[in-house]
């Protein structure tokens, strides 16, 4: 008998709905199986909880301030309801109106999607993380405010819901407890998409109420549109940084590596997630080496936004998404490039590759780095020595590249060739599990959100990684490489490895695909991947 019953209507009640208890989480394999030996879960100070959001679970991703007065509360409620109504208008939301209405009106409440959600599962079936919990709240709001009927009939058909500050603040937080991985949508017999519902919820908060995590908005899309990159790098800084990377890499590999800038008519406009340049400089360097070796004319753009493929608008705000995508398109047109290649970044690939497709009108073709790398490895005459990658390798599938784009095999064909000890995770491909950093989480660590994404949203991936290497010596004596061809996933996996001390305990390392490819190049005499330096 369950004792922790949380009802849909509890969302409108004051106070926390649930508490994270590490003992209730699904256990990890040794040596991470004793929760007492793992980092704890930071409890927020009472003052923080009193001043900020009415958190559903004692976690804060956003930190929304409590309204100072009754009038302020009323204003927020009215804004929320007006946003809710606008979400169902074609003028404001033609972008997702049809799938949203379908997902609102046809859920049979069969809970078939539940077991597909790694967050719900790993949390020990915590009710507030159930994929249908926040979806059902929006559904009830939809039938109350957007498609109103007789109140009695509504209660009979859908059940009731009360909108107040408690609901708004908890729902805002809950819209950031789902990574939008859409595994739940894969399993739904009817095709209801709880990931989409969460995405749309975020839009009410951002587009109408101006509420979004600062990492995604102020430091994300706003900074990118103003300064040029969500990393804060302006065009001069990014060129300086790349110059430094070029010099460093040239010294390491023994030949000149040079990033090309603003080359008109190039075959490829390469747009990296600019985070690579700061956090993983070997990645853009490896691209430069590989593209030059393949004899491809390529360029990066030094124009504002053009050197950063990040588009966090994808996660929370269609207008911000469109603004950044339009800038990318404009720059590619101006440079008259033959195609845009999205660097190793899942959400960039999805945003530019498929989501923005409908506003690009085929003006500039785009493809993922996976296909280009495959083409270079197999068709451009470069010599490889796979034995240089003589360490165990597994592949993390970014949801945005696999489930959202159907790009599954190119990266595998490359790995099977250049990494003799490659092994799959279970499950993989379209059935993969999210790294736990999806939908912007990888860059969100405020308050105690880092603890949440390490203990809960990233737990399934961490377990999968450990299991992929279970036939190897468990300790650090054998370095094990997690290939994650996505910047955000890499950020999350980096954090997981650090948080659990997995480099020391299990010999886990991580990196991209292109680094492995360059490491296997015969022309690269020294190690390109050096575990001692990682």
């Amino acid at each position: 008998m369950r004792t922790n019953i949380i009802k849909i209507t509890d969302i409108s009640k004051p106070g926390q709905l649930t508490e994270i208890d590490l003992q209730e989480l699904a256990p990890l394999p040794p040596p991470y199986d004793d929760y007492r030996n793992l980092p704890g879960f930071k409890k927020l100070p009472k003052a923080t909880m009193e001043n900020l959001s009415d958190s559903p679970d004692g976690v804060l991703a956003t930190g929304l301030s409590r309204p100072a007065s009754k009038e302020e509360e009323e204003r927020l409620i009215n804004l929320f309801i007006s946003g809710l109504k606008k979400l169902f208008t074609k003028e404001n939301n033609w972008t997702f109106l049809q799938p949203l209405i379908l997902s609102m009106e046809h859920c049979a409440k069969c809970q078939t999607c539940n077991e597909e959600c790694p967050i719900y599962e790993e949390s020990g079936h915590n009710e507030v993380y159930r994929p249908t919990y926040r979806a059902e709240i929006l559904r009830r709001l939809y039938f109350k405010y957007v498609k109103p009927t007789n109140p009695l009939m509504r209660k009979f058909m859908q059940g009731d819901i009360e909108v107040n500050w408690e609901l708004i603040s908890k729902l805002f937080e809950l819209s950031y407890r789902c990574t939008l991985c859409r595994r739940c949508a894969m399993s739904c017999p009817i095709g209801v998409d709880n990931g989409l519902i969460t995405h749309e919820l975020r839009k009410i908060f951002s587009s109408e109420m101006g509420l979004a995590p600062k990492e995604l908005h102020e430091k994300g899309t706003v900074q990118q549109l103003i300064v040029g990159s969500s990393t804060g790098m302006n065009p001069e800084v990014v060129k300086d940084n790349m110059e430094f990377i070029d010099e460093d890499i040239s010294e390491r590999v023994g030949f000149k590596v040079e990033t090309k800038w603003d080359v008109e008519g190039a075959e490829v406009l390469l747009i990296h997630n600019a985070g690579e340049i700061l956090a993983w400089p070997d990645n853009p360097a490896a691209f430069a080496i590989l593209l030059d070796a393949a004899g491809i004319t390529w360029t990066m753009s030094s124009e504002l936004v053009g050197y950063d493929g990040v588009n966090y608008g994808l996660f929370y705000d269609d207008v911000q998404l469109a603004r950044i995508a339009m800038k990318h398109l404009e720059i590619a047109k101006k440079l008259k490039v033959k195609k845009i290649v999205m660097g190793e970044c899942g959400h960039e690939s999805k945003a530019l590759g498929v989501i923005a497709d409908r506003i690009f009108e085929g003006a500039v073709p785009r493809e993922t780095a996976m296909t280009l790398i495959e083409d270079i490895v197999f068709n451009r005459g470069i010599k490889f020595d796979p034995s240089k990658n003589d360490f165990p390798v597994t592949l993390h599938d970014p949801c945005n590249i696999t489930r959202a784009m159907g790009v599954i095999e190119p990266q595998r064909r490359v790995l099977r060739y250049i990494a003799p000890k490659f092994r799959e995770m279970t499950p993989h491909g379209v059935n993969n599990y999210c790294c736990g950093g999806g939908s912007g989480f990888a860059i969100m660590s405020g308050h105690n959100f880092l603890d949440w994404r390490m203990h809960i949203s990233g737990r399934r991936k961490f377990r999968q990684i450990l299991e992929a290497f279970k036939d190897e010596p468990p300790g650090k004596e054998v370095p094990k490489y997690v290939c994650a061809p996505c910047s955000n996933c890499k950020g999350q996996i980096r954090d997981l490895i650090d948080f659990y001390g997995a480099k020391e305990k299990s010999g886990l390392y991580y990196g991209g695909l292109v680094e492995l490819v360059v490491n296997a190049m015969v022309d690269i005499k020294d190690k390109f991947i050096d575990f001692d330096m990682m």
Partner: protein
Amino acid sequence: MILLILTYIAVIVFLYFNIRYGYKIASAPVHLRWELYPVPHEKGRAQYGGSILEEVDWWTKPREKDKIAELKVMIPEILFLKAIWEHNRPLWLGSFAFHWGLYILIGNMFLLILSTILGFFGFSINAEQGLIASIIFYLIKWLPIIGSVIGIIGGIRLFMQRIVDTDLRLYSSASHYFNIILITLIYITALLWAVTDKNFVNNSISFYSALFTFGNISSLPLVAYIHIYTTLFFMIYLPFTHMTHFFSKYFTYHKVKWEDEPNLPKSKIAQKVSEYLNYPVTWAAPHIGSDGRKNWIAIASTFPGKENQNEN
């Protein structure tokens, strides 16, 4: 006469509201791409979830769509509720039986319509009228019994699961229980009518015949009236419930999950999207920069934060 009129009303309401809803969904704006792989029509790749985007310079390659492959996914889903089998096994038996009860009764309805039409051409359906007539006769006699028994089993199981299983109970509104009871009542009355009425087949056909000819309905047993009235109520009620998934599933699969049509210059999609980009944006957050009149193009081409910064 009242029964006939009510039947016509029920059919009209059923068709009108379902078609209206279907039209509303079908005519909704083309949305941004939101496909979810595996997409079964991706020829040669669907098995592992791949797409044409796996090809270098994919836009220069021919797109091969395998529509038969879509049917290979849809048919097991519709007939055997494959997704529930794979992802929610405890719910499958009840759901399968509950749906199959309906499939069989609907199948029987078409047999009754066929029999009625054949009757107009002098081909009467009875056990002694030759092989085909007797096959149809016995099908009409036994299908409601078989379908109803299966449906009742499914109904009871689903009802009990909704009560006993906390996960289901917490998310069930009163209508969920009511829907199960209502449909199970249709099964129970169909079963009772079929087993207690010696003239079940003839009475059923004569009811349909009266519907077609606006003629008199022969006297029916009480349970038959209960069955018909319950069914008519269900037909009027259904378009206002989530149960319209019986056709909206087409849209969730074909127009969302599997909708991967690229937007090419001068395509129909491009024309539609250019129309949508002229829609006024009224989102109220300051960063949107809406004045209630600016359209998507104007909004997406500027950024208020940037203007402010430049001014500063």
